[in-house]
């Protein structure tokens, strides 16, 4: 039945879209603070997912691994910013970019040394058998519902924190105008560290949520990072809302490609993502959700 098929592809696209959205949001958080694209975001997520799998293995508790992974993401983000990124501030922007690429290589190398290079399967929190309405399969599982809910809750919590808390206001002020923020007594450097920590949290979440369907290995997050990056560019690197919408659009589009083109389709997804990226950059280089240029300093 074409309608059912379409619904299944759409729902499964939403699930992956939410994961891309989480990665895209983590990139946006760092981009807004420092105009830096963090190429190590996927590598950081991969590393914290390994931490999760070790904790799950040793404690037998999925949730212990889940929580530790998120905490590890916060710590890893903050530590990376404090140790290798902070010294590149006030230097040419390319320095920081190269440092994040170096960080990615370092993390993937360390993961290989500590955890080995073989593919490992990662458990899911809930059943991965497809849900059905009556006898019609929906194409999504309980775990998929959890994926969507987890990203949604985290995103809304972050949005509320940015909107309503003092730290959120300080972070926004630092991102929009660091000079004014500093002159007002805001410790901008600290805000950047918090931004990296939150980005680490989102990346860790994405890693734990995507790994049941991809296996875990030192490069396992590379493709997810590329999709997350594409989603962020579609939305405009400046816009958190755009990152989420971009993630969903990309997830659904890739799901249609993989679904309707059969076995050839799943090989084409990366190519299609690249195509979408090129088209967006040609038509709306600032992304679909770019704010009107109210300020150009």
């Amino acid at each position, binding site marked *: 039945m074409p309608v059912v098929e379409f619904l299944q592809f759409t729902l499964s696209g939403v699930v992956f879209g939410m994961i891309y959205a989480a990665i895209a949001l983590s990139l946006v958080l760092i981009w807004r603070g420092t105009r830096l694209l963090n190429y190590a975001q996927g590598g950081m997520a991969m590393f914290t997912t390994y931490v999760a799998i070790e904790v799950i293995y040793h404690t037998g508790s999925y949730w212990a691994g889940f929580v530790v992974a998120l905490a590890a993401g916060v710590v890893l983000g903050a530590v990376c910013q404090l140790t290798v990124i902070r010294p590149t501030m006030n230097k040419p922007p390319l320095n920081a970019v190269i440092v994040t690429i170096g960080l990615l290589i370092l993390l993937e190398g360390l993961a290989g040394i500590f955890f080995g290079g073989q593919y490992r399967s990662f458990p899911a929190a809930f059943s991965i058998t497809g849900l059905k309405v009556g006898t019609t399969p929906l194409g999504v599982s309980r775990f998929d519902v959890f994926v969507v809910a987890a990203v949604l809750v985290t995103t809304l919590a972050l949005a509320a924190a940015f909107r309503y808390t003092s730290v959120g*206001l300080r972070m926004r002020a630092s991102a929009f105008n660091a000079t004014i923020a500093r*002159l007002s007594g*805001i410790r901008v450097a600290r805000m950047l560290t918090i931004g990296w920590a939150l980005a680490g949290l989102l990346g860790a979440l994405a890693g734990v949520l995507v790994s049941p369907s991809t296996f875990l290995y030192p490069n396992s997050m590379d493709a997810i990072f590329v999709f997350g990056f594409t989603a962020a560019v579609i939305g405009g690197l400046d816009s958190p809302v755009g990152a989420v919408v971009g993630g969903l659009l990309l997830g659904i589009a890739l799901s249609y490609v993989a679904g309707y083109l059969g076995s050839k389709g799943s090989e084409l997804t990366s190519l299609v993502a690249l195509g979408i990226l090129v088209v967006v950059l040609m038509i709306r280089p600032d992304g679909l959700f770019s*704010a009107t240029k109210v300020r150009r300093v």
Partner: protein
Amino acid sequence: MSSAAAEHNGSPALAVEGLVAGYGGVVALDGVSISAGTAAITAVLGANGAGKTTLLRAVSGMIRPRRGRVLLGGTDLAGRSPEQMVRAGVAHVPEGQGVIPELTVEENLRIGMMSWPSGRGRAPAGSAGPRSSRAERAAALDEAYGRFRPLADRRRKLAATLSGGERQMLVIARALLSRPHVLLLDEPSLGLAPRIMAQVMDLVVRLSREQGLTIVLVEQNARSALAIADHGVVLNLGRVVASADAQTLAADIALRHHYLGF
């Protein structure tokens, strides 16, 4: 605020001695000494590139001076960060672009209170006074709205929607919320219509006369700055070429022609 002014009575609230500062290989300030009297308006004048803005940036910590002292109430604070300087009582309103258009008017104002000691936890080092409560912050906001009525009506609107004059009002209101002793104003009248500009100048006078604020006013528009200032300093290529009370400078025709262009 008048009590803070009384503390330093007799000595200047802000004094800069032998300040040398620059960018890379360029020396923008070459041994500048000025003193800004307590509760007085000191106008810093000069052509483009004279070093006026650099002077303010060196005082507020935006750039680190290479040599010299920045004395605030007698204490040398040269080389401190902007975060520390605002806590020490120096508010710097930089030229143009002072509002954050992506934030609401109220959020812009709340940023002005970020230097206050936080309500809980330890008070940050170097900050005077007791920790501030939520009620105290709300009261300070109300006071700002009371003084700047047009901002009260627009508090939930994005600052991007404000006119030029309202924006200048907003940045000055925000600077005042940090409860400064010394206010550094960089070209507050830039790009404003003459009538609005007169209002801003009027506000500057009232802040000094009524609130006892020490004001350092950088202006291209030397004529209107000298009209409200108590003291004037003329910079040229990073050096002080004249320093006298405002009437004397305004009456010095040769100086005016040579450095001030009127």
